[in-house]
């Protein structure tokens, strides 16, 4: 598949495919708005944020895979994309290690 992308540009989705991805993005946006109007704290505190992030992550993945053609790209591009997620995970994890340990046990401030 990757060779096709490099050599001839074949293998991309056609215009209906792009419209389909666009529709997913629009639905995602509407869902985000709808979710923000509901109080989901009954699931667990902060569930609204998690739901919003999940929708955003799904939309971003669609953009990356189809609009940015990562799906048809060589493995090196896949590696680059995955590495950026890894770095994002580092940022979240090391930031949360502060927030989650501020008031617990011997490490509390």
């Amino acid at each position, binding site marked *: 598949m990757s060779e096709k992308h490099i050599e001839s540009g074949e293998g991309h989705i056609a215009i209906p495919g792009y419209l389909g991805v666009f529709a997913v993005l629009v639905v995602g946006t509407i869902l985000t708005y709808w979710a923000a109007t509901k109080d989901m704290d009954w699931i667990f505190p902060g569930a609204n944020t998690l739901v919003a992030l999940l929708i955003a992550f799904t939309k971003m993945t669609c953009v990356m895979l189809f609009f940015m053609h990562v799906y048809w790209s060589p493995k*090196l591009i896949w590696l680059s994309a995955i*590495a*950026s997620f890894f*770095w994002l995970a*580092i*940022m979240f994890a*090391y*930031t949360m*290690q*502060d*927030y989650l*340990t*501020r008031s617990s046990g011997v*490490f*509390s*401030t």
Partner: protein
Amino acid sequence: MQNADAIITDSSGEPKVNYLTNGSTIKSWLLTKDHKRIAIMYLVSVSAFFLMGGLYAAAIRLELLTPASDLMESGTYNKAFTQHGVLMIFFFLIPAIPAILGNFLLPIMIGAKDLALPRINLLSLYFYWIGGGLTLYALLQGGVDTGWTFYTPYSTTFSNTFVMAVGLGIFINGFSSILTGLNFIVTVHTMRAPGMTWFRLPLFVWAQYATSLVMILGTPVIAITVLMLAIERAVHIGIFDPAIGGDPILFQHLFWFYSHPAVYIMILPGMGVISELVSNFSRKKIFGYEFIAFSSIAIAVFGFLVWGHHMFVSGQSIYAGLVFSFLTMVVAVPSAIKMFNWTATLYKGSILWNTPLLYAVGFLGLFLIGGLTGLFLGSIGLTVHLTDTYFVVAHFHYVMVGGQVIAYLGGLHYWWPKMTGKMYSEFWGKISAMLVFVGFNLTFFPQFILGYQGMPRRYASYPEELQVLNIFSTAGASVLGVGLMMPVVYLVHSLFFGKPAGDNPWMLPGLEWRTSSPPPTENFETMPVVTWEAYEFGEENGLDTEEARRREAVSTVS
């Protein structure tokens, strides 16, 4: 194996058109796609910002000559150190080596005609100009007083200065950085000449590659952070302000997630320059090539894991502080690997004490002090005493000026003959290098003591008993200023009156020394095929014999 004919090229064989003479109109420069011309435009622009940042530094040191706040009132002083920081960090230290030396040399060093994305390269320069112009506009309108770190709540609640405009300038300038990094990565992956394997790449290229990784992974975060700051100021969405549901320490996490790796954006290219200088001016294959190459990558990766050491006393949890403190010690290891390997390379080398090597040796000493005092500050207990004192200022300047600026100056002198085709005055070069070294130490070493004695940074006044050391520091700044201005004079002088440099004035084997000085627009008249290892010195290639003859001739004349 290389042969002497391929390397010892004759200066009389210059092509009729080189990159400097290939068009002389302003349009030919502003619309150029030639990486070398873009590098020269960066050189002029970055130097202008360096000068402006330096003027602010002079104002700061003049104010601190006396204990009282008599030259500037406190608010003005706040603006002076903020603007010094903003101009120096975002518009000089970060772009200096990648955008000038990297742009000019990276394609030549790997045997390519240009960067992979020449238009993107020009666009990055435009972004730099737009971002810089916007920032200068804001400074002229009244400036900004938050400190270069833009900490909340200074920058959201209390500051009424031009935070938005400067933030936007930095935001736009960030794209310049991202595009340069992207271009370098694509170029190194796709444009290497036949035979130029990864482990034949000059270590300067490895350092640029590692820097580029940090640029594209980190810079978007600062851009987003500044954007969120602007959103909070403009439409009061609670992100960092606790009064509307935000968290000021979140700003510090996001800011330092980029800004600590940014320290490596500044210093890693300098380390690449030092690897070139140490190996080439001791005429020895560098000791531990692979270790130095991978230590650059290790610094780039580990550099992302230590940002919390800027936040030990900010309210961050003690657990997080312990983790960040430990990781800070870890990141010292790859830096130490480089230091040991550079020293081992110099050992028993055939050393040529020219201006570039003077800078390189200066770097080794100054960066050592800067790096080791970084470990002091990374120790979670000791840093409680030292945070926000002049000890931090001294440490930072030992790494940034003693490291990056010294390396940049060394690299500029080293490659100046290639960039311009002219030799500068070696005598004045050495005088300048020594003045910079002496002036720098006189300026910043007393600040370690001042900081340890408790002098806080960012105040226009201080107790009288600290004045003597402050006088030393200001006097040193004067010497440093003279040392830094001298190259402007003798390098510009060399453009008009300098002796022709020849293609390979240092008798070195790297690819950049196998094309004419200045290089033609396409860099090489024919595609080079690399059949030799990096830093391959030896009698069989004729370079050492030529160099020995040259040194003998020089010593006979003198």
